[in-house]
């Protein structure tokens, strides 16, 4: 007998889930090797620059580009008149990239240049002569909504800007008989009845302000047509597939001839979810110049031209019974739509979810009117209206609690939902860690004791007052079915060395999606993270994904990747079962090997198995695909429905020190408890929460885009205050793992959550410290000081103004 001694190996069980996994592209980024769009240069490229309006609202009488065209190094100069096939873009298709006939805001694009260098392009801009005829400026939506107000988009108008419609002529936008861009009306229950049954009713008007994304990487794009007229765009869009389709429509091209490559992005936060004029203009320039065109913003241009967070003036009326149960919420909001409609006008989709479903509220009435003005338009920004709504909801939670003599925590616990509840808007809370979030955040911050102590010290001597405030938030955590599909596709392949290529439609915007998707696949296939390469940034290669928004990527792209990985695993185990003549159920993948599930005994290492599969008679490669569509529904015409496959909660307790002699508020500590379903990449999720908290801190205390008479007064970091390192609070973060049944390994989305309730908790902390409630943001020293001295801004929004 010839027995070859064979060493038997065993591999103990292990898991990647919940571990601190290093971000895969971090070493490149820390070495300065990563190429962002600003770092990419194509041979023969020209540099594009945009001439923006000098007026807030004006008729364009004439544009003289002759001197600009004559400047050495200038290839093309274009205006609306040169682009006869121009089509409007944006959420309401009311927005021509190059303005014709009229400018309606300071960011309006009037002309564009492509030249040999950026410097020459900027010189050329100075040589373009535009004659304007001023029109009355509308910067207050309350004024713009009045009958007889000047119309920002009179009906109808043609691409060349004339208001009269010639038969057969093209219509850019049918225009409006008034300045109302959009309306939203929602209701569940009967608020009138509910108010009659309430023991306490409170009403306040809240003013939520302009802030902006301030991605460290400014906006930019490169457009190039190849010899056959196919379009290649290097773009930082967060929605490449939607973009592809929209561009095809705008340019009247076959979408199959448009390709988008996404270089690494210098921050997204929702700023890149719509189509913006500069992108279309860049393509027009490339088309006209027949050369690749690179167009990159300056920081000032970024501040002036990028979409902002949606400013909101809202009146909330809330009621409860003396036993603490909420009875109703009635909401009226006035949304400043700005001159053109972008995603900001649709924030009511999210806001009504908060008003209808954050805490159990049996009756809810919600109304938004979004009104055109000559102000900058707002887009989508981390939280998407939820910061604004939560600011109001959580102010009233404290107010009502105080009115009935109940503690703020008790009041919230009384109304917090449990797993299995379905909200008034039809949101199905299949996994819900809400009460755990409240209890744990309160416990870890010693909330109750500090709250009581601070109230006692309100009138104690000394200028420094401490405050502690609590607030919670609810956001979608399993995607959001607002497009026809909320799905994501994955293609997976293993090579002869068991190296995996994961091709996913989900974009990486710095949040670590490529790492968490790899983590899920490696967990499933029993491989180390080093075995995986991710391809996620080329529409010619990757399968469809709707885009990076609504905190959906871990959940949906994660499930998609898992689906493909499971199919691959099944194929591998089936092949191994055949080879080792046993049942598939007896086998597993671990440590880069096929093992016996019962005891971890190694049967074969995976690379060898892959090669034996490949080089056998009936050759086989392991390649799988999976498209995951979450089991959520579209909302009906009344906005009701289970729009997400899962929901996530978070509670934050904010502690402050307030100097009553200057109004300075220092955020000293934030204790956060977030229901995330399951922690996948602990390092990544901590980073998301910490970053979100500090973004919320900026919204609450320091950031404000000052727009006066339609002009942005602080388009720079000198006067637009981002939070800097010495200002950050101490952060204590806990994760509640409510193990969502549908989420990948139980996980839910968390991208937006941590930014959402910081300002709300801060407002409550200021009240705790001083007994003064401030209903407008941000809590700059001057605003706080004025409020403490009875000189605060009086806010009021009449229902008729908003309805």
């Amino acid at each position, binding site marked *: 007998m010839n027995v070859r001694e064979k060493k038997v190996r065993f591999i103990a069980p292990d898991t990647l889930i919940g571990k601190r996994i290093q971000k895969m592209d971090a070493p490149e980024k820390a070495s300065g090797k990563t190429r962002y769009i600003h770092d990419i240069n194509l041979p023969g490229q020209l540099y594009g620059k945009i001439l923006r309006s000098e007026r807030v609202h004006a008729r364009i009488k004439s544009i003289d580009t002759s001197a600009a065209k004559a400047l050495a190094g200038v290839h093309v100069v274009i205006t609306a008149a040169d682009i006869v096939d121009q089509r409007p873009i944006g959420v309401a298709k009311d927005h021509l990239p190059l303005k014709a006939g009229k400018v309606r805001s300071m960011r309006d694009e009037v002309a564009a240049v492509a030249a040999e260098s950026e410097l020459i392009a900027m010189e050329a801009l100075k040589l373009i002569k535009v004659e304007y005829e001023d029109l009355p400026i509308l910067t207050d939506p309350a004024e713009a909504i009045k009958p007889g107000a000047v119309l920002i988009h009179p009906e109808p108008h043609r691409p060349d800007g004339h208001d009269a419609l010639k038969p057969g002529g093209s219509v850019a936008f049918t225009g409006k008989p008034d300045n109302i861009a959009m309306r939203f009306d929602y209701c569940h229950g009967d608020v009138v009845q509910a108010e009659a049954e309430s023991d306490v009713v409170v009403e306040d008007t809240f003013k939520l302000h302009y802030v902006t994304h301030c991605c460290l990487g400014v906006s930019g794009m490169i457009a190039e047509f190849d010899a056959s007229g196919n379009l290649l765009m290097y773009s930082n869009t967060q929605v490449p597939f939607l973009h592809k389709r929209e561009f095809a429509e705008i340019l009247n091209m076959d979408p199959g001839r448009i390709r988008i490559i996404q270089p690494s992005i210098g921050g997204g936060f929702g700023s890149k979810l719509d189509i913006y004029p500069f992108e279309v203009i860049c393509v027009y320039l490339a088309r006209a110049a027949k050369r690749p065109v690179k167009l990159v913003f300056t920081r000032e241009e970024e501040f002036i031209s990028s979409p902002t967070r949606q400013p909101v003036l809202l009146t909330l009326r809330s009621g409860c019974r003396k036993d603490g149960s909420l009875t109703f919420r009635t909401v009226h909001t006035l949304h400043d739509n700005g001159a053109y409609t972008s995603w900001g006008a649709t924030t009511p989709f999210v806001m009504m979810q908060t008003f209808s479903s954050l805490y159990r509220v049996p009756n809810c009435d919600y109304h938004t009117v979004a009104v055109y003005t000559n102000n900058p338009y707002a887009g989508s920004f981390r939280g998407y209206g939820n910061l604004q709504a939560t600011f109001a909801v959580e102010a009233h939670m404290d107010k009502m609690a105080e009115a009935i003599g109940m503690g703020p925590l008790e009041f919230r616990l009384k109304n917090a939902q449990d797993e299995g509840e379905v909200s008034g808007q039809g949101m199905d809370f299949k996994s819900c860690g809400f009460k755990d979030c409240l209890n744990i955040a309160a416990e870890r911050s010693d909330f109750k004791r500090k709250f009581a102590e601070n109230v006692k010290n309100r009138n104690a001597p000394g200028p420094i007052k401490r405050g502690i405030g609590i607030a919670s938030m609810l956001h979608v955590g399993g995607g959001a079915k607002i497009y026809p599909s909320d799905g994501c596709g994955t293609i997976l392949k293993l090579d002869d060395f068991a190296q995996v290529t994961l091709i996913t439609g989900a974009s990486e915007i710095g949040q670590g999606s490529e790492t968490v998707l790899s983590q899920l696949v490696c967990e499933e296939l029993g491989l180390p993270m080093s075995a995986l390469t991710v391809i996620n940034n080329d529409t010619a290669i990757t399968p469809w994904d709707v885009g990076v928004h609504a905190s959906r990527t871990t959940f949906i792209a994660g499930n998609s990747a898992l689906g493909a990985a499971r199919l691959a695993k099944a194929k591998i185990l089936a092949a191994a079962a055949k080879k080792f003549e046993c049942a598939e159920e007896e086998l597993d993948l671990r440590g880069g090997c096929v093992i016996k599930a019962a005891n971890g005994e190694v049967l074969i290492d995976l690379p060898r198995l892959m090669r034996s599969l490949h080089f056998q008679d009936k050759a086989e490669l392991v390649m799988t695909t999976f498209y995951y569509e979450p089991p959520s529904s579209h909302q009906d015409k009344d906005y009701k429905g289970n729009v997400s496959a899962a929901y996530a909660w978070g509670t934050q307790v904010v502690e402050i020190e307030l100097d009553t*002699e200057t109004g300075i508020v220092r955020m000293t500590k934030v204790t956060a408890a977030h229901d995330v379903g399951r922690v996948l990449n602990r390092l990544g999720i901590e980073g998301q929460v910490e970053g979100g908290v500090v973004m919320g801190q900026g919204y609450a205390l*320091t950031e404000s885009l000052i727009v006066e008479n339609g002009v942005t*007064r602080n388009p720079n970091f000198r006067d637009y205050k981002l939070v800097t390192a010495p200002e950050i609070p101490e952060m204590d973060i806990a994760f509640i793992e409510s193990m969502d049944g549908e989420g990948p390994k139980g996980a839910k989305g968390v991208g937006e959550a941590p930014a959402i309730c910081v300002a709300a908790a801060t407002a409550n902390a200021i009240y705790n410290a001083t007994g003064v409630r401030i209903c407008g943001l941000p809590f700059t020293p001057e605003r706080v000081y004025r409020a403490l001295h009875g000189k605060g801004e009086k806010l009021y929004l009449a229902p008729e103004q908003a309805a």
Partner: protein
Amino acid sequence: MTEIEQYVAPSSLEQAAEYLQRPGGVTILAGGTDLMPQSQGGRLKIRRTLMNINHIPELQGIAIEGGAIRIGALATITEIMQSELIKKHLPILIEACDHFASDQIRNAATLGGNVCNASPAGDMLVPLLVLDAEVELASKPNGSLSRRRLPLAEFFVGPGKTRLGEAELLAGLRIALPSAHHYARFFKFGTRPALDISTISIGIAGVLQDGALANVRVAFGAVAPVPMRAPRTEQALEGKRLDTASIDAIADVARDEVTPIDDIRATAWYRKELIHNITKRMLAHVAQS
């Protein structure tokens, strides 16, 4: 694009002073931390000659010269912060440096540049005023290098404007060595430790004597077109025994003495409130010293 026709980098003060007489004007390059953004932002046009003064030895160094500390115009904020002489004799300047912009800017920004930029909110200017600093200006009017001195308080004319002549160069600043019992403190209002254009800043200096300050100097920043001395506040404070009532009264004088403007950083009313409240706080500190 600028229209610079000549770039020079002299290696002596005399050479620099000669260049200053060139037709078409000369723009001086030191740290560049104000010049670059102002030029690129279109707020300042660089003249025909760009003169790099970073290699001129007479503009460098921090030393004691005849009973005074001379700080060369090219001394960077970091150099001042790390100077043993300054730490020992003029700690108020260290306080101001610590609130100045950021480490990166402190490493490049020069004291001369900060003085010549003459911002109403200039961080170093308020403490220099209460230290009775003098500027040392060099030129070569009649073929030989000459210098003149001017009290800093007389140097500022308006926002961004000084009495620096067309053909003059700021060579350095001189501050008389403070006497015993000299007290000097600086406060800059902001929500950040640094990296803030001040909303208001206050400098108070004098000689401590029997619970009062004598030879008082008070200066305010960001509440006037130039960093200003506050004569009425000085008068109210001079020799006054400091208790709650007198501190209140002096703070009221301070509030009334300033006439700031509304701008995007703050309103005039709030600036006045801050001047009042912070002056009060600073005087309480003086009382405890």
